[in-house]
């Protein structure tokens, strides 16, 4: 990789017009975001942009602030300072505007968080009916479409507790996809899974990346991050240390801290 290409990519990340690419509007832009829990500063001055079709993997040690960052992006945590901009508009911490914004930014949780009293189909349909106000038939057809996409079509009548972890997580992905979000956030989607179920969930995510879905993924799956992401972000102690293309970050990291983390991680 030559230096020019890297610089071009840096420009691309910053949203400047490069090589005939027109300037693209970022879907999400995070400016000087900080988060404190009491006196504990978890995030410090985070700047970060997400463009359409980005697949961003956020990696880093436990406690580096990556999950908190993800949760601040859709306001599940209220940032202590800084701004979250969605298509250039500032998102407040609560209220109707926030709820409307959240309906456009999907989230997949580590613990799946399927609605335990509802069937698989109703889990997907609830948001479509109540938030997007779709007709029943339309909501049903759309839910089934996305459940099939994740290979869970046959299970529409099952309750979450009747499914394996991997199946539950795939339903959770279908539930988020049914809303047809502009960005989909994943908070360590495979960390709570038994090892033999990690593959099926990663396969689904890989397919989504290939289709061009914009995703931000907090993960410990390094191979996945390297193969699938368009940008990999390394976080340490509440700051973004490096924001690079994966082929650069994983082979020739610029920063000492990134090198250290990767060496430690690969050694395990």
């Amino acid at each position, binding site marked *: 990789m030559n230096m020019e290409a890297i610089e071009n990519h840096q420009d691309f990340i910053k949203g400047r017009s490069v090589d005939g690419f027109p300037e693209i509007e970022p879907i999400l832009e995070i400016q000087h975001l900080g988060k404190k829990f009491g006196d504990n500063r978890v995030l410090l001055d985070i700047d970060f942009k997400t463009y359409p079709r980005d697949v961003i993997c956020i990696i880093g040690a436990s406690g580096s602030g990556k999950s908190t960052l993800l949760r601040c992006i859709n306001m599940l945590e209220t940032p202590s300072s800084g701004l979250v901009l969605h298509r250039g508009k500032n998102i407040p911490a609560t209220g109707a505007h926030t709820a409307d914004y959240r309906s456009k930014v999907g989230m997949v949780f580590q613990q799946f968080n399927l*609605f335990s009293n509802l069937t698989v189909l109703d889990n997907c349909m609830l948001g479509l009916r109540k938030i997007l106000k779709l007709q029943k038939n339309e909501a049903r057809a759309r839910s089934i479409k996305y459940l099939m996409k994740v290979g869970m079509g046959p299970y529409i009548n099952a309750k979450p507790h009747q499914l394996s972890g991997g199946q539950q997580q795939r339903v959770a992905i279908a539930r988020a996809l049914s809303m047809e979000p502009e960005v989909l956030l994943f908070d360590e989607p495979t960390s709570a899974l038994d090892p033999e179920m990690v593959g099926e969930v990663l396969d689904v995510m890989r397919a989504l990346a290939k289709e061009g879905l914009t995703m931000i993924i907090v993960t410990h799956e390094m191979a996945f991050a390297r193969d699938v992401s368009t940008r990999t972000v390394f976080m340490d102690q509440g700051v973004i240390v490096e924001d690079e293309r994966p082929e650069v970050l994983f082979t020739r990291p610029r920063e000492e801290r990134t090198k250290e983390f990767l060496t430690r991680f690969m050694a395990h």
Partner: protein
Amino acid sequence: MGPSTPQNSWEWILLFLDQYGSAFAKGAILTLQIAVISTLIGCIIGFVVGMIQTIELGKSDPLWKRITLKIVNILLAVYVEVFRGTPMMVQAMVVYYGSDALFGLNLNPILAGYIVVSVNTGAYMAETVRGGIMSVSSGQIEAAKALGFRHTATMVNIILPQALLNILPQIGNNLIINIKDTSVLNVIACSELFFTTKSVTGTYWRFFEPFLIACVIYLFMTFTLSRLLRLLEKKLQGPRSYQLVTDFMDDTYGNGSAVIDLKKGLERRR
């Protein structure tokens, strides 16, 4: 029945049933009505109070909202403590005679009964509902928020249905208790089953047999209702197993493309 005096308890029972069967039935029906309706009203009170008590306001909310909520919460806490902390029999006296002494209202004893049992149940249910709401995991709330649900919609669509399912056994418990405890309303001459039974004893000055009959009627009502509630619980929990669905052609696409996708998906997984 012959005109001769009964020789044993069994004959007494038959005599009481013959002469006062419809009085027992009326008393039992009133007991059942007060217990069921008051439990329902109590549940509604409990849900409203429990919901208010679980509202969390942050620093970002306006001051007047926080102050109002604080005052309302104090009043609700007083309500819960007073009605849980005093006997229902005493509450019945205070409401029935108090409404006359303080407001000049001549309450019908039956209406007073409905009020006392409802408000009393509400105080117990408030705590139960609060517990039921808190027992719903925070992940469920976050998932709803992440889909774009606001606070009230999250409550109505996600949390309350789950809380209701969690506290259904407790609601059943309250209903059973209310069937039995309406008997305290006899102190304000509310003609429920206990009061009726007591009245019946006066004619022949026999106590054992009428109360044995009342005992059986109470047991019949509580046992039947507790079984019915079990059935309801089961029904709300839904079937234990599920059916796999492999044919969506009827209700989704109509062109079979979905089914082909599905078959591919299944083959890949094999």
